[in-house]
């Protein structure tokens, strides 16, 4: 089902029209698109909610310069620019997080967008004379993390992707999960006739394999294509009826199973992935990459390696670099990237330094590549919602830094010594294992009390890096 050229053209026209509107918008007010990037369960939804909440209350952001110098006036949510995208349901999320019996957000199923408008006094005397009170619109989108891993597909051919994916599925720990699908494939001939039933069955088994990967406690990140596990509006669409196949020996002719799947793969790339990218990621100004380092550490070196590969592959798709004022107007390049280790409240605060350095090492290669392209890069350990406090506890005559909070599913607080995380991921391999144990904690009871916004760790510094220069 090749995409009709006319549909593409009308799309293009519509998009160009949108762009003109957005351009004028950008010239009148400051508009800033922040790309919250993160694999599934990395904390995107919580981060977005906490960010909005803290901007609305502005009472827990001491290191955000505009607040510290008293130039911040107020912020509020506004209708987002893209009418076709659902609104980020901040109210529901915050109500759930701050309820007397608080709950974390569910897995995100669809894309949604939020716009926060900030009114502030410019810092420089000149700007203040020229413009008086200024405003900045922050646009943030939230989406299922699974979809992010579709981006690396864009520069793969079907053959390449099939080869990689099959090789991966034959290695531990995935081989056990993939057994049924692989067995089914071994009885089919890719260069045989294209039968819809076979394609559907193969895709179904492949989807089951992916779902099993997602459910496994090994925290496997590399799950492609993302829509198979989180289809969004595409449930049952034929574009999802494909899977990797072993490459046929001879070049497969038309109307073979291989060519049908290849066609669908390409259609998936064009109609699903490229569109998702163009609509949401192509025009970012700033990017924050949320990384659940602690979750991966908990699951072991395999999960860590898996996460590292996934992240690195994903980030290649973005355009980084120093942006001129013209780029800024058109929204072409990302000129600041923040790598953030999320959920830092799972460890006592004296280990935050190690967590940051660990993340630094994990993303070193990407970070350098981005820096080379001219964008500014920073790493940080943060928690969008601080659920624990650091306490000292005595154990066998030694003072241990522990965290105290209420674990998920319990009602009484506990004091947890999670172990010491190393400051370099290579230490994890060498020592064989560092025994670590992080618990998931409940959101703090009545977190938003006193109208101060959600308690957080370094959200202000993250914001200062991401948007500080626009608020100066």
């Amino acid at each position, binding site marked *: 089902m090749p995409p009709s050229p006319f549909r593409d053209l009308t799309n293009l026209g519509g998009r160009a029209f949108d762009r003109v509107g957005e351009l004028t918008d950008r010239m009148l007010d400051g508009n800033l698109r922040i790309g919250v990037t993160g694999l599934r369960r990395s904390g995107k939804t919580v981060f977005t909610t906490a960010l909005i909440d803290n901007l609305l209350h502005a009472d*827990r952001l001491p290191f955000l310069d505009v607040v510290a110098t008293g130039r911040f006036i107020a912020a509020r949510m506004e209708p987002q620019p893209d009418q076709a995208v659902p609104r980020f349901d901040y109210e529901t999320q915050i109500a759930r997080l701050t309820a007397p019996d608080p709950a974390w957000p569910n897995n995100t199923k669809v894309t949604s967008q939020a716009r926060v408008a900030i009114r502030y006094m410019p810092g420089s005397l000149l700007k203040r004379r020229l413009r008086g009170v200024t405003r900045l619109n922050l646009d943030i989108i939230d989406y299922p993390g699974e979809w992010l891993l579709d981006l690396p597909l864009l520069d793969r051919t079907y053959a390449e992707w099939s080869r990689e994916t099959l090789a991966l599925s034959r290695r531990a720990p995935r081989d056990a999960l993939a057994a049924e699908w692989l067995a089914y494939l071994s009885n089919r001939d890719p260069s045989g006739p294209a039968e819809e039933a076979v394609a559907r069955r193969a895709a179904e088994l492949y989807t089951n394999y992916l779902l099993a990967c997602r459910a496994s406690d090994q925290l496997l990140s590399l799950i492609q294509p993302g829509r198979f596990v989180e289809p969004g509006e595409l449930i049952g669409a034929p574009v999802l009826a494909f899977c990797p196949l072993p490459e046929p020996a001879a070049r497969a002719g038309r109307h073979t199973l291989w060519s049908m799947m290849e066609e669908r793969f390409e259609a998936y790339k064009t109609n699903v992935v490229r569109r998702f990218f163009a609509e949401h990621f192509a025009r970012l100004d700033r990017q924050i990459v949320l990384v659940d380092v602690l979750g991966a550490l908990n699951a072991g*070196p395999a999960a860590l390696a898996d996460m590292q590969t996934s992240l690195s592959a994903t980030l290649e798709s973005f355009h980084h670099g120093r942006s001129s004022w013209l780029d800024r107007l058109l929204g072409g390049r990302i000129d600041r990237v923040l790598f953030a280790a999320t959920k830092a409240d799972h460890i006592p*605060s*004296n280990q935050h330094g190690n967590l940051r350095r660990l993340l630094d090492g994990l993303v070193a290669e990407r970070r350098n590549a981005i820096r080379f392209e001219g964008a500014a890069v920073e790493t940080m350990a943060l928690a969008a919602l601080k659920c624990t406090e650091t306490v000292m506890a005595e154990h066998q005559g030694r003072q241990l830094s522990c965290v105290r909070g209420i674990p998920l599913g319990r009602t009484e607080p506990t*004091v947890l010594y999670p172990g010491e995380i190393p400051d370099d991921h290579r230490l994890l391999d060498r020592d064989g294992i560092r*025994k670590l*144990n992080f618990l*998931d904690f409940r959101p703090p009871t009545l977190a938003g009390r006193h109208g101060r916004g959600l308690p957080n760790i370094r959200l202000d510094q993250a914001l200062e890096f991401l948007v500080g220069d626009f608020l100066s």
Partner: protein
Amino acid sequence: MTGRTRDPDYVAPDYIQPMELDPSGNVVVVPDERSTGPHPSGEPAGEVETPDPVPAPRRWAVRLLVGSAAVLVALAVGYDTVDLVRRAFDTSMVLGIGAAALAAGTVVGAFGVVAGELRSLRRLRQIDGLRQDAEHLRAAGTHGEAERYAGAVASLYRDRSDLAPQLTSLKDHLSDAHDDREVVRMVDLQLLQDIDRRAYQLVLRASRDTAIATALSPAALLDVAIVLWRNLKLVREVASLYGARPGYVGGLKLLRRMLGNIAIAGVAESGNHLVAEALGSTLAASLSARVGQGVINGLLTARVGLTAMHLCRPLAYDETNRPSLKRIRRELLSVPKQVL
């Protein structure tokens, strides 16, 4: 989530198994009690040599001279007084009692004054110490050591009702998650920058006062007196604002240190340059020498005041928030217009 054991035989030398501890046991909430002991897992604060802005050479000979002379004088005065009192008693009982009471009053008063001066000097030293602590904390980047520093700075301003909102907001914003550098920065941001703003206003006002007073004063000797008096007053005002509360000796000491340190970072600009700037502008050049002198005295006062800010602040300025002469200079250059 549970920690898996991949290599059950491996145990690091001082390894402690991740575990949950009894929440009711001896658990200490960190922010309040951290200062009671060294942090177990924080690295020791790195030894960082911060140069003392004022090298104090050991001038033992001078001290010996001054000390001995002072004791001698005290002894002499003491003998005379005792003699006087005895003679007063010889004359009449009433006169004797009166003289004794006066002598006692003098001694007690002197002790009081000395004690007050000593206390104020100690405060100055304490502030110096705090400033050095902060440098260590900033350089070392440790965790958990800075609470004591923040506590000490906060207690310096404990009785100041004018700073109550700043102290509250400092307390509100500090959390157990901040590392030492962040704590120091927070003290700077939430508490000291407000004081800085007010101190800057004081300096601004004082330098304008001296400029105008010098310009209007009829005699050169009067100038010197005005400048000295106003500078001393400014130094004491600034120091009190930062919580140093210097006595007379403290104020003089500060002033002396200041004259030695007037070239301290940031405030330093060559005197020639200043004069040139003050007089070289078309406006100032056409004015009488008196007014030009006033502007120069004003600038001198400004530099004294800014140096006082540097020396009395429990945290050294960094590159970004250092107070600058620029605004004061602009203000001063408008003085001639006001005077004429």
